[in-house]
């Protein structure tokens, strides 16, 4: 595992890394605590969402359990004017990008297909079609180049793009095309693959026979494997990769080696295809616990602070719980909104059909 970048061991011990230490030199105790806070709150949000799905409040939920370190590390590495292109599981990234958890729920509750303003948050909408967003990220990065926002040295101007995808996604044509485009155009995009070992029921061996980060070498750009359960290492590696992209050195592939602790989604039953022993192994590497251990070991967090954080997490859960139920039901006529810039007469007639039916039904009900 010498290939794996790690800064915090599963036991919470900080280990030195000549290459990546400089990238987190600014991470002081305060920052470590705030990283921990993100991890805890994101996990709490996720737990609550799973519960909401069980209660029938969400149609589906894709849990990030086990991947908090990768997502918070990567999410926090972004600058405000950078852009992230997520899959459907990046709730931790959304959190770091300031997206309201309630806005994330909308898609899973079925009240919207989107949920937030991508521009405001520098985070594109969730993309369910596997791999499609990696091309969008690459194109966006090509736009960044054309805007002259690469390699100027001005930190407020230089921009990078972060594309998320899973281990399974690496088999899609689109993802490989994105690698090619990024390589050929030298676009400022970092490909962040959360290798959580599973694509629904399929283990990594179904997608690749060598470590995924090495895929990049065949396309002519660097790839690196980082301990995806180590938020600090993920922060460092992603920062380094984004900086490289911003300065004009082109794309990079980061493979965050992690594990999907939960089901693929709430519809899935992982007991059908994987063994408990594997989970046991990975529980020992929990991304949240290891930061807690680090904080406690160094005396960086006292019981009061931890209690306060727990309380904050419960408040968040409560807000999510109530807020989810209160999400406004969509107006039926909104089926016709935003299909086109301007509704053509044909569609307008179809909309009127709905309105007429609704009126009819109301009469019947009345």
């Amino acid at each position, binding site marked *: 595992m010498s290939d794996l970048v790690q800064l915090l061991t599963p036991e919470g011990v900080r280990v030195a890394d000549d290459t990546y230490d400089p990238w987190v030199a600014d991470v002081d105790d305060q920052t470590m605590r705030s990283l921990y806070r993100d991890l805890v709150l994101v996990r709490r949000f996720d737990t609550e969402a799973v519960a909401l799905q069980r209660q029938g409040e969400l149609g589906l939920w894709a849990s990030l359990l086990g991947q908090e370190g990768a997502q918070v590390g990567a999410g926090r590495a972004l600058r405000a004017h950078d852009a992230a292109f997520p899959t459907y599981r990046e709730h931790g990234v959304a959190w770091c990008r300031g997206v309201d958890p309630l806005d994330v729920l909308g898609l899973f509750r*079925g009240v919207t297909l989107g949920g937030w303003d991508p521009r405001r948050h520098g985070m594109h909408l969730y993309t*369910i079609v596997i791999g499609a967003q990696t091309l969008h990220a690459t194109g966006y990065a090509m736009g960044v180049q054309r805007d002259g926002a690469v390699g100027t040295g001005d930190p407020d101007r230089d921009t990078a793009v972060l594309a998320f995808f899973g281990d399974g996604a690496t088999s899609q044509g689109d993802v490989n095309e994105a690698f090619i485009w990024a390589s050929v155009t030298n676009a400022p995009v970092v490909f962040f693959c959360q290798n959580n070992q599973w694509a629904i*029921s*399929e283990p990594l061996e179904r997608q690749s026979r060598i470590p995924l980060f090495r895929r990049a070498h065949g396309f002519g750009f660097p790839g690196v494997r980082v301990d995806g359960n180590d938020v600090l290492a993920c922060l460092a590696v992603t920062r380094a990769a984004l900086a490289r992209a911003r300065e004009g050195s082109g794309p990079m592939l980061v493979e965050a080696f992690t594990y999907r602790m939960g089901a693929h989604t709430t519809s899935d039953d992982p007991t059908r*295809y994987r063994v408990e022993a594997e989970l046991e192994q990975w529980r020992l590497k929990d991304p949240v616990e290891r930061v807690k251990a680090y904080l406690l070991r160094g005396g960086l967090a006292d019981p009061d602070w931890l209690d306060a954080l727990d309380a904050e997490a419960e408040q968040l859960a409560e807000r999510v719980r109530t807020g989810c139920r209160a999400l406004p039901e969509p107006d039926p006529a909104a089926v016709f909104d935003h299909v086109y810039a301007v509704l053509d007469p044909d569609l307008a007639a179809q909309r009127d059909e709905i309105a007429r*039916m609704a009126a009819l039904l109301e009469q019947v009900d009345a």
Partner: protein
Amino acid sequence: MTGTELTLSKAINAGLRRALESDPRVMLMGEDVGRLGGVFRVTDGLAKDFGEDRVMDTPLAESGIVGTAVGLALRGYRPVCEIQFDGFVYPAFDQIVTQVAKMRFRSSGQAVASVVVRIPYGGGIGAVEHHSESPEAYFVHTPGLRVVTPSTPEDGYWMVQQAIASDDPVIFLEPKRRYWDKGLVQTDAADPQAPLFAGRTERAGTDVVLVAYGPMVRTCLEAAEVAAEEGHSVGVLNLRSLSPLDWPLVLDAARATGRMVVVHEASRRAGLGAEIAARVSEECFYSLEAPVLRVTGYDTPYPPSRMEEVWLPDVDRVLDAVEAVLA
């Protein structure tokens, strides 16, 4: 009638099992079809019983699934591909349209891509985006493909076997909201009762005929029931095969009643309903008492699930159209 009571998904599973048993060239391939048995469990237990070579968990790439299936077919195999959801068939569209559909034609019959592409399709199950699409018109418009869709367990059981036995490539559309519908299946019969490409009159009717397929057959039968209570004799045709279409069945019904309504979930514009309405209007010009109406999904993307009820054709909308053609 004897037989086994099965859900549609279990009936297709039984049909696949029988196909695997009876022809060693048959193999299943797709994402999660092996150990998991498919996200809808349609291939449940088959990998265990027939081995991973014959029931293969593939890399996550639909073009790869269909493209390698073409190669397997050229080697003499009979691959049955599963596309996990309707909305994920598009990465394979190129292989389906430019390769699978044209192989026999371009080779003057010397090479055939006898591939079945199974696709759970349609909405109404409260799913997230891309999980409720009805892509049938794309395939019907593509010469060289056969497109069929069962709507009952009995049909599921037999049609999947017939599709696999067919030398032509078949797009096999499974109405996912009906996966859990139960029905009697003649699993011990030697042969199917109906040819693969024949439609069926599900209910006779003298005033109006509803033409439907897949998920909408049940909806139309329910509508016909309600209409009957209101004194209208409404028939229901189940197309079963969308390409080729059983035109004699459709045209005779149109001539007999003079009033027809076509129902499908897919969007209206250039959908299959257009073909049926156009053809019926052309060939039954002098028999029609009213225009052929279409009850379809709207010409918008499939909406978020909390709005899908408004988008999907339902009994009310069908009845509305029935009344309109009777007016």
